[in-house]
């Protein structure tokens, strides 16, 4: 009891401090709720029948069902679209790594500013403005609607990302290692391949994950340039409402099928994704 009166100052500070941290916790909880609850709701809706979805009274108490997912795979036959999305995102990411990593290395070691700016142009231009001429070109060549065209245009999305993220990464690597490797008789290119690249696995992983996500999410290019055989998931789901009546359950299941893979990848690799986003943004 005596202590109460002897130490008024720190005590007040701690109570104010405690109030502050409580407020902060509440604020963080609110932010999380606003950002995450819609996604949770989408997942819940995908596990309900459409009849339960359209009746808000029954929504929360209804039982779970996997019928919507079965419908997505059988009735709406999404399997080929899933395969297409994977193939195109994977291939365009791989090409971007092979082409973009050396470019990023040269940009970081030789401080080439023009090339960076030029590659960043690809981030700025609206896709529609490129699509008309692309469509003309690929139509005239008779290759529109094929995998090569889709992969090639998706590289347009993935390459700038890889270059931006990797250039930042290479800059943070000390040059001494490469130099000492050259003293040991390796060529400069050899030093890049044998020394720098193995050390850059985290950077490569970051840019690969990001590039994959952005290619996976891309809607516009496939909307114009894909055929039925090469259609990707975002285009498939945008056509969903073309079927007779609105099958909310099926629609939400399809949405979950598309978003869950990328969200899971991002969660598992969140450190990489955050650092990559920051690097890619500040370099722009």
């Amino acid at each position, binding site marked *: 009891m005596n202590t109460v009166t002897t130490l008024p100052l720190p005590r007040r500070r701690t109570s104010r401090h405690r109030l502050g941290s409580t407020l902060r916790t509440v604020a963080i909880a609110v932010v999380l709720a606003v950002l995450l609850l819609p996604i949770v709701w989408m997942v819940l809706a995908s596990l309900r029948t459409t009849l339960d979805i359209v009746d808000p009274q029954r929504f929360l108490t209804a039982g779970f069902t996997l019928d919507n997912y079965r419908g997505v795979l059988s009735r709406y036959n999404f399997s080929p679209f899933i395969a297409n999305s994977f193939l195109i995102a994977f291939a365009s990411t791989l090409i971007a790594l092979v082409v973009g990593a050396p470019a990023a290395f040269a940009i970081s070691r030789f401080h080439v500013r023009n090339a960076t700016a030029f590659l960043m142009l690809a981030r700025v231009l*609206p896709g529609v403005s490129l699509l008309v001429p692309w469509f003309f*070109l690929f139509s005239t060549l008779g290759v529109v609607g094929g995998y090569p065209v889709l992969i090639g245009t998706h590289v347009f999305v993935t390459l700038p990302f890889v270059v931006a993220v990797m250039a930042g990464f290479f800059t943070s690597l000390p040059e001494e290692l490469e130099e000492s490797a050259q003293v040991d008789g390796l060529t400069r290119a*050899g030093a890049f391949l044998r020394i720098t690249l193995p050390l850059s696995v985290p950077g490569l992983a970051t840019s690969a994950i990001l590039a994959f996500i952005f290619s996976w999410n891309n809607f516009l290019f496939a909307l114009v340039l894909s055929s039925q055989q090469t259609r990707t998931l975002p285009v498939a789901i945008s056509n969903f409402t073309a079927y007779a009546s609105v099958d909310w359950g099926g629609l939400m299941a399809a949405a979950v099928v598309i978003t869950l893979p990328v969200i899971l990848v*991002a969660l598992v690799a*969140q450190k990489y994704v955050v650092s990559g986003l920051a690097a890619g943004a500040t370099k722009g």
Partner: protein
Amino acid sequence: MITGTAPAGAEPDAAHLSAPGPVFRPEDHRPERRRGLRDRLGSWIDRHLKVLFIAPSVAYIATMIAFPILYTVYLSLTNSQGAVTRPFDMVGLENYTHWLTDTDRFWPATWRTIYYTALALALEMVFGLAIALLLRKSFRGQGIVRAAILAPLVATPVAIGMMWMLLLEPNIGIVNHMLGNLSLPRLGFLTSPGQALTTLALIDVWQWTPMVALILLAGLSSLPDEPYEAASVDGASRLQQFWYVTLPMLWPTMAAAMMLRAVDALKSFDVIYATKGRGGGSEHEVETLNILAYGQSFEFSQYGRASALLMIFLMLIVAALAVIHILRKAGQQ
């Protein structure tokens, strides 16, 4: 517009001069010829490393950008339509005058684009900064929180559009249901012509605020401590510290994030198209320039008209970037 690439040796190359590589390369005393060949090849590669490494990327981007832009300029002066194989005539600037005098579709679409971008950008910067400050000090479980706020920005926009269509459905959506429970008026959201565009801008805010927050968080964590210590010694309040220390030092990062988001918001397409379909609704209530240009190109096959519209759109984007660039410079003064 930035044109041309960086030719080799365009700038003095300090790194190259100081590189010890060539100095320590063994002389041609090797008996095996193969080794010598490989050496010669290796040294040739090294001498041209910069060009060899950069050329493929730049060549690819140049082919995919330079040709399209030039071709779009050319098409914008023609009356090309229907099929790409159909012959067309030069019509001069007719397509441009068509759009610039079109008070039905073009000007409303322009204002909608600007409104959508300005609203989304302002809210994203404010909320993004608030969340970044909120997460600045470390706390237990911060990794989980940072991972969780990633979800909206990596989620596929088209699917997100479908998700909000259900949440905001006027009759069965949970949002109206909650509003009803709170005895607030129910809203039409995406289905009501007066509210749809604002609703879409808010969906954009939901999806991209985390991105801004994460970028600013990275910016905050790299700020030095000394100015804060100095400010504390001077007895500056928290608010003063934020205003006189944090904001000025964070400004370059904020400007970079603004650039990024402004360009992306101007180009917004996926969610708008997925939720409202062709033409941006019954009264074109959400028809932005991008939606209009897409419709002209691929629904009406008006390639000439669409190309002119795209050139105008491009100029708008360049103008927006210039404005932000000027702001950036002003902020650094």
